[in-house]
């Protein structure tokens, strides 16, 4: 009965075979041409002159210096934004207060700011010509055209990523588990470590992965604040630009392929995260079916 009904519905909701083929064909062609080909090209051009040339390009001191600065930037930006993401999600998901929607909009704000404008803001704030920049320079602290400027610009650009993953997740999970723990006498830190963190760990991990990938690949904002000093303030994307503009294509694509690999990791991470969170919800509902507490807000 049910399958019969489903079948009829499927017929009514489907296109003639020819239309379907045209639609699938244009999807494959469009995505292949615009997404797959540029991705394949990165690796193809990087390996154009063989593995040795590829390896030599990556081992160059300037490329290694760029890699080091990029990793340092990640090491500064990701933990800070992860901490912020957890704090913001805790405040927003666990409590009711006025202006919550405004706060969420403000957290998303960096996504609407062009990276170049983001970099420009920090030059205006910390540049040698600004009051604060001049004051800091007198004390020997240089922000713009130095690594700290790159760190701050990157923090700005990756600011919402962890919070954005955690806020909806923690809202969906609800407060029941934590309230139970607290009423049974658990302290705040204990509640967080034992109850909240295990519940949100995949979302947190995925948010951090996104943050790391974006921090490694940020170009526009970092470009404005870096000053392009070779071996000192060049991150990997800036190094790619220099190599490319010097017509050293193999080297440019070799460094680029490392970043492309990172982006493939994030794409895989997304699939794993989706799978894990589905599994988590299934586990929870199986638990409820056995007579455990019912998730009231999990929707």
């Amino acid at each position, binding site marked *: 009965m049910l399958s019969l009904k489903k079948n*009829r*519905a*499927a017929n*009514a*909701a489907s296109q003639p075979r020819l*239309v379907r083929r045209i*639609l699938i064909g244009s999807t*494959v062609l*469009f*995505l292949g*041409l*615009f*997404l797959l*080909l*540029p*991705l394949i*090209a*990165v690796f193809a*051009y990087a390996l154009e002159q063989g593995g040795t040339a590829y390896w030599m390009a990556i081992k160059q001191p300037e490329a290694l210096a760029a890699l080091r600065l990029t990793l340092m930037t990640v090491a500064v930006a990701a933990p800070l934004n992860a901490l*912020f993401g957890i*704090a913001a999600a*805790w*405040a927003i998901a*666990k*409590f*009711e207060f*006025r202006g919550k929607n405004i706060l969420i*909009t*403000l957290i998303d704000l960096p996504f*609407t*700011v*062009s990276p*170049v*404008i983001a970099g420009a*803001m920090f*030059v*205006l*704030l910390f540049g040698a010509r600004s009051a604060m920049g001049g004051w800091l320079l007198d004390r020997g602290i240089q922000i713009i055209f130095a690594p700290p400027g790159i760190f701050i610009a990157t923090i*700005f650009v990756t*600011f919402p990523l962890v919070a954005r993953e955690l806020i909806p997740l923690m809202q969906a999970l609800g407060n029941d588990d934590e*309230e139970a723990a*607290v009423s049974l006498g658990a302290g*705040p830190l204990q509640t*967080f470590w034992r109850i909240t963190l295990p519940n949100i760990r995949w979302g947190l991990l995925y948010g951090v992965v996104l943050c790391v990938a974006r921090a*490694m*690949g940020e*170009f*526009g904002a970092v470009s*404005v604040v870096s000053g392009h000093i070779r071996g000192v303030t060049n991150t990997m*994307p*800036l190094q*790619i630009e220099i190599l*490319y503009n010097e017509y050293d*294509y193999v080297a*440019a*694509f070799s460094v*680029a392929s490392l*970043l492309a690999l990172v*982006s493939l990791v994030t*794409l895989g991470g997304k699939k794993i995260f989706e799978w894990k969170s589905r599994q988590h919800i299934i586990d929870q509902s199986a638990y409820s079916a056995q007579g455990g507490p019912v998730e009231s807000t999990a929707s």
Partner: protein
Amino acid sequence: MKTRGQKRILPGFGLTMGFTLVYLSLIVLIPLSTLFLKASSLSLREIGDIIMTSRSLAAYRLSFGASFAAAGINAVFGLIVAWVLVRYKFWGKALLDGLVDLPFALPTAVAGISLTTLYSEKGWLGGVLAEVGIKAAYTRLGIVIALTFIGLPFVVRTLQPVIREIDPEVEEASAGLGARRWQTFLYVIFPNLLPALLTGFALAFARALGEYGSVVFISGNMPNKTEIVPLLIMTKFEEYDYAGATAIAASMLVLSFLLLLTINLLQWWSRRHHAVA
């Protein structure tokens, strides 16, 4: 801050909220207001003089035109892609679906050099296009190609959940009442998708307006011809023309905030539309 109704059992509101607000102010709000503060120190006439030069106007025209074209391409193909990925089963679908997020994940500079090399006259695609007399790299067409790439996920990802939620019974009813398939699509399905489609379009457009990394390589960066607004801001900075850079940056920021407002209204409309349908 007051809690509404419920008693606050959980700890940590003051600490987390305090940290959130301080961090938000330091990283986002203070830098943003610095930009507007600097811009407001210019008189309207000065701002007008900066924006009304033929070079700036050409950059605005190009940025808006190319972003609009790219968002349009994405609206058309994004609708097809989203429809196909939700409704049909075929080999390689899961891979294609995962790939849709690539423009979010791939660093813009990497996308930029890859697209430029592909579409340059010696490249895989540029060579083919050159034979029919089309030049893509270092022209406006190249800019549209790069902006299409980076805006692609927005339309697909906003449409997919909406298409998934369309009840087949609605289509069945429409067919049962004698509607042809194209009539069902045009009068029943499409109006349901329109708010999400417009949202995706606006998101892709907003992203394209601010894009820098993937465009600088392929555009050729000729003033008045292939110079986009973010690049103009960059150039002004490199020439230490801070007033000029500030004025243009502030004008673009105001535009992006207006776009954000439009997108929020569209999403609200989309949700309400959905609740009724």
